[in-house]
């Protein structure tokens, strides 16, 4: 505790207490899609369409209108980082889990990491290689 030297004439130190109920308004997920047959290429637009069609199947037009963003996409590994508002996380995750096929090809989504902060997705201790 720091006391001001001036005595009674000075005003006490003012402070503001800000409480965040929700840590962050977006949730970030690192996901990858696996197809039963190998050798399938998707570009970023196809990937987003895959996500939106999963949402549309399970949650209808309202679910398909959820503002999901694909922040990064790697075509070789078919993995991406998705951003979704925190209120829509349950809808997105459940839709990705229940997606069975895309254009008559069987596929599955694997959720690797999820976090309310993007920085947390930069490192993954499971894939850490110790030399």
């Amino acid at each position, binding site marked *: 505790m720091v006391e001001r030297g001036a005595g009674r004439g000075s005003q006490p130190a003012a402070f503001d207490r800000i409480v965040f109920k929700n840590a962050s308004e977006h949730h970030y997920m690192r996901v990858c899609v696996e197809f039963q047959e190998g050798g399938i290429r998707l570009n970023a637009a196809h990937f987003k369409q895959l996500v939106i069609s999963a949402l549309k199947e*399970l949650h209808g037009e*309202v*679910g398909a209108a959820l503002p999901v963003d694909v922040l990064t996409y790697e075509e070789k590994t078919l993995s991406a980082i998705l951003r979704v508002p925190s209120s829509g996380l349950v809808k997105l995750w459940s839709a990705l889990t229940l997606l069975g096929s895309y254009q008559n090809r069987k596929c599955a989504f694997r959720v690797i990491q999820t976090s309310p902060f993007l920085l947390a997705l930069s490192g993954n201790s499971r894939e850490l290689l110790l030399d």
Partner: protein
Amino acid sequence: MVRFKHRYLLCEIVSEDPRCRQCIDERAVSAAAKDAVARTHGDYGLACCSISFTVKYLNAYTGIVLLRCRKDFYRLLWSALPFVTYLENRNQRYSCFFNTLHVGGTIRTCQKFLVQYNRKQLLLLLHNCTSEEERQSIQKSVLSCCLKEVEEEQSQSGDEEDDCAETD
């Protein structure tokens, strides 16, 4: 008390086509509502709203429908009703829309609201009617329901006086 709570949605089917009245029946209305929920809220919404979904009351002459669903999911059903655009019956399609009048927790509250609503509608019809015989018939029905209201009030106030006398 543990019981399943429901919400009753009182809706009015409004249509330009007068032949739509014939095709209002329980199956067509139920199919139209479920189809709208499936489009708007997907498989999850359809499954949630279908749990205790029934058409409890249907009046083809006035186009009044009473739908029931679980209390937890009534918002899904309510938000999907504006997306109903047609009713289909025996391969005949009539365009219409659903106008939600009242949401109640019990059939009784919906019935009370419907009685008052019908009274107001009768007065509106009286105001807007064109021919003399229509005017006569509407006036007769308005008088009959208003007289009943006055009689009910008198009997109710009589009962209340008796109750007060007993408690005193």
